[in-house]
Each structure stands twice: as C-alpha cells, then as structure tokens.
C-alpha cells in the first residue's frame, strides 16, 4: 500500500490540524519552532542532516502530544537533486502544507585576510542555494493553492557587507532579496512570505561570534517568529530592537563603513 496508516490523522472541519515543514529542524531555532508549532497543534515534517538528533526531537514531540505529530526526513540541503521527490513524499505524508520554514544555515568563520572559495561556496550552498531548491517548489504549490506561508530565516548580518563575513553576509542578503521577490510574486495569490532577521540567538552558530550582546534563547526567537506568522508580517527583526540598530547601520555612509572593523 502506498498510503501508510501510521501517518498522522488528516484534518477534519472540526480538527483543522495545520501542517508545517521545517528545513533545518534538528537544533537551534528550527528545533524550538518545531516544539512550539507542535504544541499549537501543527503536524510537522522535520528535515535536517543529523538523523539522530531528528529522531530524538520526534520522540520528544510525539510523546508530549500523545499522538503522531512529527515526521522526520534526514536530508542534506546541499543535495538539491533530492528535493522534488522528498517534497512530494512530505506532501503526501502530511496531506498538504500550510507553512514552510527554511531555517538551515551555515556560518564558517573566516579570517580578516582570508579569501577561501570552498568555505564561501559551502555557506552559499546551505544558506541560499538550498533555500532556492526548497522554496521554489513550495512557492509553486502555494501559488496553485492560493494560500500558504513561506518563512525564510535570514539574519541581521544580511543587511550590510562587513569585513568579518563577506560570503555569509552575501548569502543572507541574497536570501532576503529572493524572499522579497517571492513576496512580490505571491502576495497577490494569497500567499504570505515572511523574512525573519534574527540577531544573536543562543545556538551552535553563536560559538563563532566573538562579541555578542542582546542574546536571546531559541525559544524566544521561535515565539517571535510564530507571532509574525500569525500576524502575517513581512519582515521582522528578532528581537525587534535590532530593527532600529540595523536602520542606523544601513544608513552609515560607505566612507565611514569601510573604515570600521566589525
């Protein structure tokens, strides 16, 4: 049988059961979002590279819910050729899709004088190309359905090109611009596209950041993202005060900015 009865139950008019797909769900913001959405009643497809961590998260979520609420799909986002078949399977397993969140991100520290193509290509592959591979087909689906929410986790780092992280900045900036274009294409089709720009969040990625402040937990970030999803916001800084800071930073003239060291 193609249909597997151990899958989560389908929605009914009185039990709507929205469905979300999280790419990059095994840790950090992705895992926190998974826990939060599951608690809100979502059925989840969790995609990430690390199968063991995914399995633990699934066990935790399903135990808390007392029913099958999370399904896991180990996958490396750099294997973009796998995406269409995997997405088709996820849609069939969940019975559709309401929210797709691309969280997968990679930050490889580079030295101030270092120009390493391999590192930069690796970050671009995860932060940007992987997002294209997943969000393009999801956009096609949502466009046809006339509904759905696409969420991309960008970064405050994508707002300017800085001396410390050229390719990371560029990959996040590319993601922001791509999401903006998706929004411009899809809003008229009833699809909501949300760009999230977190500041410092206490995740594995943070260990590479030398100076940090205003650090929030992944749970706090997930709460802010869920709020933005419900409010159908377009772009949010997490926490919100980064919006003011980044407004200032975006307006620092180049003749000053190129002399700065952060």
């Amino acid at each position, binding site marked *: *049988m*193609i*249909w597997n*009865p151990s899958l989560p*139950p*389908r*929605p*009914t*008019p*009185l*039990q*709507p059961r929205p469905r979300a797909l999280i790419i990059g769900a095994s840790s950090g913001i992705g895992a926190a979002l998974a826990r939060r959405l599951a608690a809100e009643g979502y059925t989840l497809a969790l995609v990430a590279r690390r199968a063991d961590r995914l399995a633990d998260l699934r066990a935790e979520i399903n135990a808390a819910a007392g029913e099958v609420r999370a399904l896991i799909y180990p996958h490396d986002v750099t294997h973009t050729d796998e995406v*269409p*078949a995997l*997405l*088709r*399977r*996820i*849609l*069939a*397993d*969940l*019975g*559709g*899709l309401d929210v797709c969140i691309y969280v997968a991100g990679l930050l490889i520290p580079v030295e101030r004088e270092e120009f390493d193509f391999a590192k930069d290509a690796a970050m671009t592959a995860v932060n940007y190309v992987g997002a294209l591979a997943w969000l393009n*087909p999801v956009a*096609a*689906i949502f*466009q*046809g*359905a*006339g*509904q759905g929410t696409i969420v991309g986790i960008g970064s405050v780092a994508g707002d300017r090109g800085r001396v410390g992280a050229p390719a990371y900045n560029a990959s996040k900036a590319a993601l922001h611009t791509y999401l903006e274009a998706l929004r411009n294409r899809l809003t008229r089709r009833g699809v909501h596209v949300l760009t999230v720009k977190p500041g410092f969040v206490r995740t594995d990625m943070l260990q590479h950041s030398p100076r940090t402040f205003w650090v929030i937990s992944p749970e706090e970030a997930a709460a802010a993202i869920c709020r933005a999803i419900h409010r159908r916001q377009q772009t949010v800084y997490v926490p919100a005060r980064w919006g003011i800071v980044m407004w200032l930073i975006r307006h620092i003239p180049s003749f000053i900015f190129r002399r700065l060291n952060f």
Partner: protein
Amino acid sequence: MTIPFNTFASLQNFGHSLRAGAYLFCPQSVEEIEQAFRLAKEWGLTVALRGAGLSYNDAALNGGGIVLDLQRMNRILAWDSESGVLTAEPGVTLEQVWQRILPDGWWLPVVSGTMKTTLGGCLAMNIHGKNNYRAGPIGEHVLEFTALLPSGAEVTCSPTKNGDLFHAMIGGLGLLGAFTSITMRMKKVHSGLLNVRAWSVPNLATHLEAIAEHAPQHDYTVGWLDPTARGRSLGRGQIHTADYLAEGEDAHAAHTCRLEYQTLPSTFFGVIPKGILYHFMKPFMNNSGVWLVNTAKYLLAHRARSYRQSHAAFHFLLDYVPNWELAYGRDGLIQYQSFLPVASAQEAWREILRLSHQRGLPAYLGVTKRHRPDKFLLTYAVDGFSLALDFKVTAANRAPLQQMLAEFDRIVLAAGGRFYFAKNSETSAETARRFLGEETIARFRALKKRCDPYGLLATDLYRRIFGD
C-alpha cells in the same frame, strides 16, 4: 516526467469547512484516467476521484495526492426517449440529465438536493432523495455501468453481471475504480409539475408519525425540522409530500415539461439578483437569528396548503439561493446525518436535540426522511428515518462541537443507527466498524485488494474510515 508542482490546487468540501491541496488533473477520456493511474504509481502517490465536489466532508479530497476531477467527462452518450434508458459519462450532472430528458416526458428516478452533482459522484455515494422509501437509492435504477479499475482492468457490471462489484462500487466511495459509463432507467412523467401538500407538525412524535404514515402513500415525503425548538415543541416542523401527476391530469403537460417552465427564477421579488442573496442571510446565521428564522418559518407554515410545483423547484431546494453555504461565514458548515430504525429514532433524536440545546450548540437546519434497507455493501439505509442537521462551524465552537458529535455517535450506535459517508465529517474508524460490521469491512477490503492491488485509490475519507 517530473513532478507537476504547478498543478497543485486547493480543493474544498461543499460546506467550505475543509480544504486540502492536491495535484489536480482533469481527464477527458478513459485513456487519460489510465495514464493518471500509471503516473500515480510511478510517483508513489494516491489518487482520488472527484465529481462536482459537493460532499459535505472529505469524500472527494486527497491532501498531498492526486485528484482526478471527472467533470470534463460530461457527455450524454445515448438517450432513448421510448424506453427511458440513458447512458452517460460519469461527469454528467443531474442538471444536464433532466434538461435533456424532461422535454421527452421523463425525470430522474432519484435526485439530490442540488442538481449540480455528477452521476459518477451520485453512484459512488449511492445518493437518495425524498423518495427513498418508495424508490430506494439511485443505485437501484442503474442497469449497467462500465468502470476502469486501478489494476488496469475494464469491467462491466450490472445487478446480474459481476453483481458483487456492482453492489460494492455503487456506494463504494470511489475507492474501487472509476465509473466510465453509466446506464440508468429514467422515470416516466406526465407533467412538469408535482402535486405538493404541506402541513405543520407540532412535535417530534407527530413529526415522525406523519412521515411514517405518508412515505408509503406518496411519491416524495420530506420533513423540515426546526432544530431550535425546545420543550413541548421539540422536533416540530413541516411535512411536504409530493406526487407525480397521472396521465391527462395536466392539460398543458407539453408546456410544463419545457425547460423555460422549470428554470428557477434568477431574481427575488423581480429585482434582487439571487447571486447576492446569501449576503442578506449572514446576519441571521447565529444562534438567536436562526431561532428567529426557524420560528417565523414554523408559524408561517401553520396552515396546511396544497399546490402544484415544478420538478426543479420542488427537488433542488439547495440551488434556490446560490452559494447559500457561504452565508455560514469563513469557517463554513458541517452536516450531521444519522439513520435510525423506526423503533428507536424518536428517543435517540430527542436526546440529540436536547443535548445540542444544553450545550448551546443548536443545529441551524434539520431535515427528516423515511428510508428502507437496500442491498449495497456499504449501505447507510435502515428501515426507519434519517435526520440531517446542519451546524455552523466557528473557530470557538470546533472543540465543543466535536465532543458533542462524538456523543451523538454513541447515542446513534446504541440505538442501532447508521451513517452516510457523503455527509458526516467526524465519523471515526471505530464508529464505522461498529455500524458496518467486521464482515462488511472485510468484504470491502477483499474487493479493494482485487480491484486496486497497489492501493492507488484513496481519499481523506478513506483514511479516516478505513485507517486502522
């Protein structure tokens, strides 16, 4: 062939209370259905068959799978106005059929409350009309059908040829195969009019007595039940009976059988376009507004009346106000229909109606009918009555409504009742197992395995009812 993500579409149920996204294909021939089965197998996806999509629940939805919308297979292949035998493709609507045959003096033997349903959908659900007690479900008027099975086989079934499949595919929820042509016998009529009689009944006991008494005597018998009435008036309503006219009774039969005569008016009071009428219903679609409307309707119907009415106007009440279901607001409506034996119906429905009042979740519309058993495998019929209740769905009432319907299910099962798969959206697998019985389910599963060895055909209803 790559995966057609751009064919994804969001489909709904009749009540606009459920949506499901699926790859939507609209085949125009048997070959294209066959091709869809092949592609589904290749992609590892399931296929659901969909007609007009007018089931109240998830019967024509298949989230994340393929949906074959068969409405483009809508040719009437043969019509013999002498014998009254019609052969048509599955996507032909009841509207197409009656408009073709009535000028020749024929009518459909069984119709649904809307004429927008397709023959394929009507057979898959084995629909009934207000004449169920006299005429049985639509399946009893089918002489023969051909079907394409997911196994690749093409079969012809009639009550005598492949009889097991005939009685399982009709009412088989589209899970065994796709009807490709349907041959039915129509009903001879001698007028475009019906003799209708309407009178009110003050409570549930008189209501059911009236239906029981009149259903054997009249061609059509239906009750409107005011679900908001309490106490001594619980179950009050209005009975309508209708009878065909005998030959010669209508001096202008040729005129009344013309389509122009049958067409429903497109405006109210001559000026208000009907398309916007549902907006004016919205302010009344709440507990107190509905109480007011139902009470007014009951009081106005107090005097018994006899009149003549066209077939279309009598039968297709749901088409009278287009998009009436949108008046229920953004979360739509659901219908809860239960079928109960004569002996236990009154007590069970008294309990159900009282419970709905206690919980502050009254139904907004109630309809009663008389039924008799039939020989189809997944039959919903009993020697008794049915009561269909429409409930408004809101974000706030979902959970308490679901809990209440689960209690209704227990009351109905304890009273020996059954359910109809085109209507109820919350029936659990356990409830279905209890009223269908293990043996019926085992027989259906065996046929499913034979017709559909790869399990290609599935709907969200199938997962809900037969998921173990």
